[in-house]
């Protein structure tokens, strides 16, 4: 099948795009053996820094290094400004949607989203009904996954409003590039990203009504795949990294055990799913949470970031409605496009999906991390048939989308430099205002032809540049 991919560095005629000219010149001038040596150096430094992740579904609990590629993904500033506005618009609408859903439900009454689809959704949390949050912030931290189709236009693949991860790679990749290739940053202006931890701390603090709230990062612990990131962000922000056992609740307030006695906690940046937050209110087997946390939260004595119950807004069955949310709450047209989506719970859309499985991407509505998805054009007959059975058994659990021609970016592979598919996850912070640092995390599918960029599925990362054009 012939496909045309948009390449970030080269245009259709093979010429280097203007915002990559400086880099291309540098690449041509730099001897191959020097590049090879720097790449080895990068591997060594990442190992030493302990930037690894644990692979789920791997019995060994093996820690792996996420491959880092030294060829950056570069975005012209004029293009970035549109993406930035689009992300802000989207996250603002999603926060307004959550506030509405857990209060007046105007969007349901207006007939824009069917009641059953949100209220009977697993991500909808009764605990949030009628609960007022300071500044109405639900998703303090959002990761918006973007890809570019054949013509270069950006599409939102999904919104991650629960506990999006990956921002530590964005920061570490930049540090690494500046350390290995300082000359590149002298040659042109690349927008900085290192103020992200300051913006994050500011967003977290401003989500509390207190003047100088005590903030902590709550991690499930060192066996979690993103533990490195939890520790990293706590250190960068200068706040405590805690596990559930370090916190306790007394009279609806949350305290942290310290060597100097109990200290009240006001804002918890939690990297723990809703179901594990409070064993007395949710999953009773959770050893990771804090007994009584929900009562403290509902008494408004502590802020959780993100709020409980944001999952209802990033569910893939709700995704098709985000454009309508933007029109409804902001009275604006969406800046970023949604990928056309077939909802398998609708019988007529299901039959279309079943008839075209070999061309579509099928995803679980509640899935994440690239697990449990079918990429039709890359799947074997057996894989397609097994997915067909799953779809027929539980159609409401799936959506399908056309296979997008994800853009490519030149990448170091075993036999030199070759194009590989990439995506982009900007991290959108909401406190007093909604903002983001320029760029985000670029993930690259290292296997030739692969469209799955998740680190758990053999993806790597690249530094992401926003450069003046």
């Amino acid at each position, binding site marked *: 099948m012939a496909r045309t991919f948009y390449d970030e560095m080269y245009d259709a005629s093979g010429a280097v795009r203007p915002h990559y000219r400086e880099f291309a010149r540098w690449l041509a001038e730099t001897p191959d053996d020097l590049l090879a040596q720097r790449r080895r150096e990068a591997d060594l430094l990442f190992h030493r820094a302990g930037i690894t992740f644990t692979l789920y579904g791997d019995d060994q609990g093996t820690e792996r290094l996420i491959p880092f590629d030294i060829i950056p993904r570069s975005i012209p500033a004029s293009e970035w400004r549109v993406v930035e506005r689009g992300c802000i618009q989207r996250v603002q609408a999603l926060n307004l949607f959550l506030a509405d859903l857990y209060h007046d439900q105007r969007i349901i009454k207006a007939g824009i989203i069917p009641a059953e689809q949100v209220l*009977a959704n697993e991500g909808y*949390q009764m605990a949030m009904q009628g609960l007022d949050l300071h500044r109405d912030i639900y998703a303090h931290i959002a990761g918006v996954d973007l890809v570019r189709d054949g013509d270069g236009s950006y599409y939102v693949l999904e919104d991650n409003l629960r506990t999006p991860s990956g921002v530590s790679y964005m920061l570490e990749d930049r540090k690494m590039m500046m350390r290995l290739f300082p000359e590149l940053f002298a040659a042109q202006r690349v927008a900085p990203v290192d103020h992200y931890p300051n913006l994050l701390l500011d967003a977290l603090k401003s989500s509390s009504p207190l003047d100088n709230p005590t903030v902590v990062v709550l991690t499930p612990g060192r066996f979690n795949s993103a533990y490195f990131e939890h520790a990293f962000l706590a250190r960068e922000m200068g706040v405590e990294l805690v596990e559930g056992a370090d916190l306790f*609740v007394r009279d609806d307030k949350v305290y942290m055990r310290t060597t100097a006695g109990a200290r009240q906690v006001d804002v918890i940046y939690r990297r723990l799913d809703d179901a594990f937050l409070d064993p*007395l*209110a949710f999953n*009773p087997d959770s050893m990771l949470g804090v*007994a009584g946390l929900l*009562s403290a939260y509902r008494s408004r004595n502590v802020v959780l970031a993100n709020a409980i119950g944001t999952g209802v807004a990033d569910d893939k069955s709700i995704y098709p409605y985000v454009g309508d949310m933007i029109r409804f709450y902001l009275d604006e047209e969406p800046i970023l496009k949604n990928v056309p989506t077939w909802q398998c719970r609708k019988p007529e859309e299901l039959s279309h999906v079943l008839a075209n499985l070999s061309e579509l991407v099928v995803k679980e509505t509640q899935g994440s991390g690239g697990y449990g998805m079918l990429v039709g054009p890359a799947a074997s007959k057996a894989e397609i048939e097994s997915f067909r059975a799953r779809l027929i058994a539980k159609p409401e659990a799936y959506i399908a989308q056309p296979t997008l021609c994800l853009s490519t970016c030149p990448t170091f592979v075993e036999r030199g430099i070759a194009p590989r598919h990439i995506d982009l996850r900007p991290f959108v912070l909401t406190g007093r205002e909604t903002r983001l640092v320029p760029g985000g995390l670029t993930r690259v599918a290292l296997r030739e032809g692969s469209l799955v960029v998740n680190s758990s599925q053999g993806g790597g990362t690249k530094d992401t540049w926003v450069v003046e054009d």
Partner: protein
Amino acid sequence: MRLSISHDTTYHYDDQVRASIQYLRLTPHDSERQQVLSWQLDLPRPVHAQLDPYGNILHVLTLDEPHESIVIGARGQVDIDETCEAEHERQSALPFLRFTRLTQADDAIREFAAQQSKARVDRNGLIDLMHALNAHIAYQPGITEVDTSAAEAFAGRRGVCQDHTHAFLACARSLGVPARYVSGYLYTDDAEHLASHAWAEAWVGDAWYSFDVTNCLARPERHLKLAVGLDYLDACPVRGMRRGGGCEQMHAQVQVAPLLQVRQQ
């Protein structure tokens, strides 16, 4: 009918408990069917009441001084309007369509529900379902545990009111009928059943109707409602955690009595 309730729960621990926390749903609230005349909780220390996610009255008891036992007492008087069959509510019932681990419907339950209700999702269909479940799961204490799921109890065909209720919820939700767990007290002259009780409510038309599978009752004549939720875990009267303490012995005493002299006045 006016009911007088006295419910004492005592927890004894083999070792000293360093700290404990309990979510207590031991206070009924007024509704169309019940009017709380007086209610008092006796706790080791004073605690403010709050509302939980389901609108139940919740007390969160935190004890951080070492202790070897906890005594929790609840007593009061409530008027039950026996003629009131349904409870209306403004909140949407749709969140109660959701399955939980304890109420997940497997193929056997789905098939049973469709067959016994004859695909009728009205009150009569659900009453038939209630009778069928009562016949299918024999009341027998000591077989199931608090974390036994609907599917396990359904397959094992023996259980208590909690299992009956979970099985009913799994059936009703599989038919697309919102249904919820109710924990409360039952007045009974028959000593076979404990006076702490559980039953189900299902949303039919525009109101919640009761279905007591254990007693095959579709009219909640002698039922006092304490709390509702998606399953036992949301609605149970006491849910707690502790640090230390070793083994625990729980002793619960419940007395539910009608106040006949009041009725005669």
